């Protein structure tokens, strides 16, 4: 294979003391190491927030259960939500973006390596600060209070009147700090994609992965900034006598909701666009076809970016907006289904007429297509404002957004783990364990989140630590809790696979999937400088051109 010509053998490093290795990792500005730090950090928090979810579900397995107190329950769902959004999915996505973007666009590092390290450590300290509240915060119930105001922390529950002590302050500061990290990473991704592409790679020929992450980074800047502003305003309310959200002094609780959701809804797309990016790389390779409708995919992504900034108040259909405002947010919410639908159709068309190989990454992506379809359709149901007057804040909406975040985003992430694990570690994962993980996890997922829709339709609101018998909710809640144990088992198999394969896996080689983007042209794992010589590309699939010199892509694009 001619790819060996442009890759250099990795320089063997003699065994060195662990302190030196640690020091190297802590002070690193290498995009690949920072990517892996992000991913390992997110894995640790995935376990913590997963255990929180299990405790929540055990408490709800039957009515009037006493596994945890209401105070503990309220902290658990606040921490579960905050952790999963800010300290699991976001770092996962930043990790993969960091690791892969320079490799995919033929660059040697991100545009600002030091900013990159700074951003990671800000995010890391944010997460640690959030969890320090578990031992360090004083609150209404004495010392050791995790925040308990819910992950969207509606005013005035966060005011000093209702949230005594410092648990809410830990929440505010944790998000404020990690928000700076997110904005730093976003600036870095934008600069890297716009300025660091290798010769020959135009905006129209760069991988969709880079496009989707570029739009994601734009959204981070647009969405995280208002959240940061709101957190500062809340701090001013709590300590400097401000009255932005202090309703007892004439402040507005509704303004907080607007601030939060003008962040919160684009945030969904910040999380899902990188997941789309994984699918847009994995589906073509395992279908053995180029992505169908590249330019339309780019257009749909940009459309999603714009529309996602104008749908936020569909989280607020029940707060008593005028019918004109309700109508506006109905039409904008439903409009976003059009570009999202286009994406699903293009992925299907990519598979159409291909030769689909059911390797673990592809299995996760196919399940993603199926589940994201359902999640989108339940989203349309809630976009119909009057229907949402029932569904909003019920278990239906909890099922819906877990369908998006677990069924859509996490499934894509697992796909990405298996797809790029050989590149990052140099070792092949175990296909048997990968498939076992897939099947156990998908059973658990559907047991939990399919049946979770039903109690919502039967009137069960979210965030209740217990419920009354005789409402028709008991059986469904029981099934939902059982599913959680399957998911936990799936996660253990996944981690087992990663660890076992890292130490015992077969060498993967530079291009195990016979893929087409530049990261597969260098060694696995790539050397610190990525490419011995900067590649020059002529089409969207440089490795296809290399492998099929008689039938290169640039004849057709």
């Amino acid at each position, binding site marked *: 294979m001619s790819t060996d010509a442009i890759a250099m053998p990795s320089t063997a490093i003699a065994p060195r003391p662990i302190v030196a290795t640690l020091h190297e990792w802590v002070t690193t500005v290498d995009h690949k190491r920072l990517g892996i730090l992000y991913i390992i950090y997110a894995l640790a928090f995935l376990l913590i927030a997963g255990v929180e979810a299990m405790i929540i579900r055990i408490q709800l397995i039957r009515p009037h259960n006493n596994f945890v107190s209401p105070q503990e329950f309220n902290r658990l769902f606040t921490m579960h939500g905050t952790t999963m959004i800010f300290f699991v999915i976001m770092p996962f996505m930043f990790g993969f973006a960091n690791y892969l973007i320079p490799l995919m666009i033929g660059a040697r590092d991100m545009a600002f390596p030091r900013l990159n390290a700074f951003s990671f450590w800000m995010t890391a300290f944010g997460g640690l600060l959030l969890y320090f509240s578990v031992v360090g915060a004083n609150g209404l119930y004495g010392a050791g209070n995790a925040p308990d105001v819910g992950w969207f922390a509606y005013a005035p529950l966060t005011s000093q009147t209702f949230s005594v002590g410092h648990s809410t302050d830990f929440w505010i500061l944790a998000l404020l700090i990690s928000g700076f990290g997110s904005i730093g990473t976003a600036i870095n991704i934008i600069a890297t994609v716009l300025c660091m592409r290798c010769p020959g790679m135009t905006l129209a020929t760069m991988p969709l992965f880079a496009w989707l992450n570029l739009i994601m980074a734009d959204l981070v800047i647009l969405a995280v900034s208002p959240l940061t502003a709101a957190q500062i305003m809340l701090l001013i309310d709590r300590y400097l006598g401000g009255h932005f959200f202090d309703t007892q002094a004439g402040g507005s609780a509704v303004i907080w909701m607007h601030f939060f959701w003008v962040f919160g809804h684009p945030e969904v797309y910040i999380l899902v666009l990188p997941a789309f990016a994984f699918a847009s790389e994995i589906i073509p390779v395992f279908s053995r076809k*180029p992505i169908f409708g590249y330019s339309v995919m780019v257009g749909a992504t940009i459309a999603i970016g714009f529309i996602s900034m104008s749908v936020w108040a569909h989280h607020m259909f*029940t707060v008593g907006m005028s019918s004109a405002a309700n109508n506006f947010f109905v039409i904008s919410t439903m409009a976003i289904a059009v570009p999202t639908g286009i994406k699903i159709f293009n992925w*299907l068309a990519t598979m159409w007429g291909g*030769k689909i190989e059911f390797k673990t990454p592809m299995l996760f992506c196919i399940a993603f*297509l*199926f589940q994201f379809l359902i999640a989108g359709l339940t989203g349309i149901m809630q*976009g119909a404002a009057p229907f949402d*007057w029932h569904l909003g*804040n019920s278990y239906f909406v909890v099922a819906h957004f877990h369908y998006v975040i677990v069924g859509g985003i996490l499934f894509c992430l697992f796909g990405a783990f298996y797809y790029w694990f050989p590149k990052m570690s140099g070792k092949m994962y175990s296909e048997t364990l990968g498939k076992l993980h897939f099947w156990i996890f998908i059973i658990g997922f559907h047991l939990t989140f399919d049946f979770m829709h039903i109690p919502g339709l039967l009137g069960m609101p979210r965030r209740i630590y217990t419920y009354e018998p005789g409402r028709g909710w008991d059986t469904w809640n029981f099934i939902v809790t059982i599913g959680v144990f399957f998911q936990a088992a799936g996660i253990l198999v996944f981690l087992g696979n990663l660890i076992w394969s890292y130490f015992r896996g077969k060498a993967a080689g530079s291009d195990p999937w016979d893929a087409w983007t530049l990261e597969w042209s260098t060694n696995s794992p790539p050397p610190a400088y990525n490419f011995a010589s900067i590649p020059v590309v002529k089409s969207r699939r440089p490795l296809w051109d290399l492998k099929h010199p008689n039938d290169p892509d640039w004849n057709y694009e």
Partner: protein
Amino acid sequence: MRSRSPTKWRTWMTQLVVVICGVGAAFAETAPPFSPTNIFAPASTPAKSIFGLSLFVLAVTGAIFLVVFALLLYSVVKFRKRRNDDGREPPQVYGSNQVELAWTIVPILIVIALFMATARVIAVVQKTAPPGNAITVTAIGHQFWWEYRYLDLGVVTANELHVPVSDSVHPTPTFIKLLSADTDHSFWVPRLGGKTDLIPNHPNSMWIDPQETGVYLGQCAQYCGTQHAKMLLRVYVQSRDEFDRWIRQQRRPAVVDDTVSEGQRIFETTACINCHAVSGTVANGRFGPDLTHLMSRDTIGAGAVPNTSENLRRWIRNPNTIKPGSLMPAMELTEKELDAVTAYLETLR
């Protein structure tokens, strides 16, 4: 063999449709016994309009699901890599503008149809003005209970809302003004209507016109603090006569009963009256529920437990044993004082 497979396919599809309809029917038909809070068992105009819209939306999204799912299933089965694959790459297809246009325009048309249906129901529910004979109630959300004030009728009560039935002959809708005394709450009785939030400094309103008598259940649907879970809603829909009788009874001042004067003395000389009111006595607190007609209510603690003398005594001794995090403190009364206060409260009919 080939000719048989379509028939088999059709049988299979028919069975699928039967199953789906069966599940749907189970939700719609057997609704009230199935769940007293089923959103698909509407009993009031706003809930019925929403129900109609939800069926339309479910039908459209269901159809989309079947089409796209069928396409996905077909491509996964049909285009899987075969065992006897020749190892050659499949034809490389880069896109098609016609196809892209088709799957852009069709969804746009679907979105327009869904939007029009939705806008109609928004207008029905949000733009209805109260008729002259409407009952008006102010509902005030508190951590963690509901206060109801019938300003025109001079009645104040808590947790159990009484409204007259509204039949086609005598439509008497109830318009509810929604306020909050502290944090955000949300009023949600699924069979009567969608939820509307109670937000401090942000008055909201909603309306219901229940068409069958009975007790309708619901609960607070916006996280409001520790005991959000036990902030339950009970709406008693009564015939007009019963409702008028209830109003007359609620307007009377508290009964004075000399046999419980010891309990009344303890009640009026402890912290009880800082929060609770009993009309016609010195007790005029506003922070907790009005107790003037406590015994006319079926439950205590915002629906947490039935209103029995045993539960009442337990509640006064320490509300945390029933509703941990409730804002009423344990009153630290002796057993004798507890008996006396419970006996006094039990005379407040």
